[in-house]
């Protein structure tokens, strides 16, 4: 292993060969209402490792750096090619996908090891798994779809100009990973717990209303601009702008512009926010003066 490491040492930075082993610190939590705790694991370095393969090694070892037997760390993943957003977590403190976080690069930046934490703006389900229900609720609130279902064939819709396609395509790349929300100083965590005697439906309703009262987030604002750019989607533009001017809407944005800086898909989120700012300005004036 040491031989392999020295052989495959990245040529671009030849000051230090990658270490044979490295430490992974994971912030674990057994269940939503349980306290979190740190756990240390020692991993033998292999070529081309990403954080997903690190988590797989940890599950296979099933013991901490001190040799204590432990259950595998729970995490979400799906596509393994940075298009689904499921494996988003805090790697060395910053929000990103585990699948595209390469170990050798992480060790160059931070030779001591790797630190893994669940996203801090969403309720933890277990270990590195979080509930991103609020993210999806925001898309529902903003009506981030185009309603075309009906009882008869509506025929073909209007054509989209190539210029509008150029604007829309980058926005359509959003994978709902939640990085923009994690890095946003105006997006603060909401975690409710079920009250005694509360039914699931009652709890869900209380949670939805709490989510709707808080910031909708850059992802949803950008999706509104995507569907309001679409020739058919435009027909319902007003409803989506109503959602953006409701409580927790675009007005909560504080222009820190972290969203666009951390977006793994490089979506022009702040451009969407400014365009939505203009659209909601005009929409409100139109509504107020009945234009």
């Amino acid at each position, binding site marked *: 292993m040491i031989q392999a490491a020295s052989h495959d040492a990245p040529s671009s930075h030849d000051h230090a060969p990658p270490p044979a082993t490295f430490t992974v610190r994971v912030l674990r939590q057994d269940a939503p209402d349980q306290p979190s705790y740190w756990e240390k694991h020692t991993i033998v370095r292999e070529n081309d490792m990403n954080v997903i393969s690190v988590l797989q090694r940890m599950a296979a070892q099933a013991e901490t750096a001190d040799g204590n037997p432990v259950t595998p760390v729970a995490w979400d993943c799906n596509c393994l090619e940075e298009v689904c957003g499921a494996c988003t977590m805090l790697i060395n403190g910053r929000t990103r996908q585990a699948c595209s976080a390469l170990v050798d690069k992480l060790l160059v930046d931070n030779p001591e090891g790797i630190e893994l934490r669940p996203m801090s703006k969403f309720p933890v389900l277990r270990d590195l798994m979080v509930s991103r229900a609020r993210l999806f609720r925001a898309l529902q609130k903003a009506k981030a779809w185009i309603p075309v279902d009906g009882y008869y064939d509506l025929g073909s819709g209007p054509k989209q100009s190539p210029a509008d396609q150029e604007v829309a395509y980058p926005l359509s790349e959003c994978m709902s990973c939640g990085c923009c929300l994690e890095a946003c*100083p105006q997006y603060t965590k909401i975690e409710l717990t079920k009250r005694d005697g509360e039914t699931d439906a009652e709890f869900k309703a209380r949670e939805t209303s709490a989510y*709707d009262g808080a910031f909708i987030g850059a992802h949803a604002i950008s999706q509104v601009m995507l569907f309001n750019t679409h020739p058919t989607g435009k027909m319902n533009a007003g409803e989506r702008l109503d959602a953006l001017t409701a*409580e*927790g809407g*675009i007005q*909560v944005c504080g222009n*820190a512009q972290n969203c666009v800086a951390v977006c793994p898909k490089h979506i022009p989120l702040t451009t969407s926010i*400014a365009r939505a700012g203009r659209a909601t300005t005009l929409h409100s004036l139109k509504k107020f003066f009945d234009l």
Partner: protein
Amino acid sequence: MEAQSGSFFARNEFLIRRLHSLTGLVPVGAFMCVHLITNSSTLGGAEMFQKNVDLIHSLGPALPAVEWAFIFLPLIFHAVVGVWIIRSGESNYFTYNYVSNFRWWMQRVTAWIALFFILYHVFHMHGWFHTEWWLKNVANENTGGHLFKPEHATSSAAIALASPFKKLLYVVGVTACVFHLANGLWTLGITWGIWTSPAAQRRANYLCAAFGVGLLAVGLGSIVGVSKTNVAEAEAFENAQLETKAAAAKRAAELLKKESAKAVTPTATATKK
């Protein structure tokens, strides 16, 4: 949409936040520009500054109404909503150390500095309220309030800012206010959708920065102007001007007396006929 629920604030959040943004520009920001430009005329000497102050105070009895409607009330609204906004967010600059994130944080830091500075500054110079009881018991020489005297504009300002500690406080306060306005102008353009693309935002950023640097020069110039004031000279000029005014008033009264004495005679003869 679901049935309208929640507090008045929650239901009107969009409108309130947009009004907060607007009041930052007009009248609060616009007033600050006028205020700093007026005060920088202290660089031109006691006569020039006194002339500008007299112009503002020529509003006479309307001045308090103008002050409250166009300065104090919008400022209080901007501050109250602003404190609520600050409490709604949490800085994460140490994790995501981007320039715009730093500015987000600084906008809030300068907001707190500006809030306490303006509360103090208005008490220090203006006194907050001008009722007899208040000026006698709260804002007076002993408490260090209501020190600006419009008819002794330059000398009273110079005396109020005599201590180096006060000058430093004003430098910090003015700098915070100017940053808050210049940076706020940039975010206002995004909020209302004036500059949308990154290139447009970058160009707007240069303009806002230039505006901020210019206004800071004017603001600090005011403090320099007040500091350079020769109090005895300024007082002498102000007293001379007051004497001229008093003499003019006296002469006017005399003339009026003469006029009315003249006017009595023809009427008296007319009634005799």
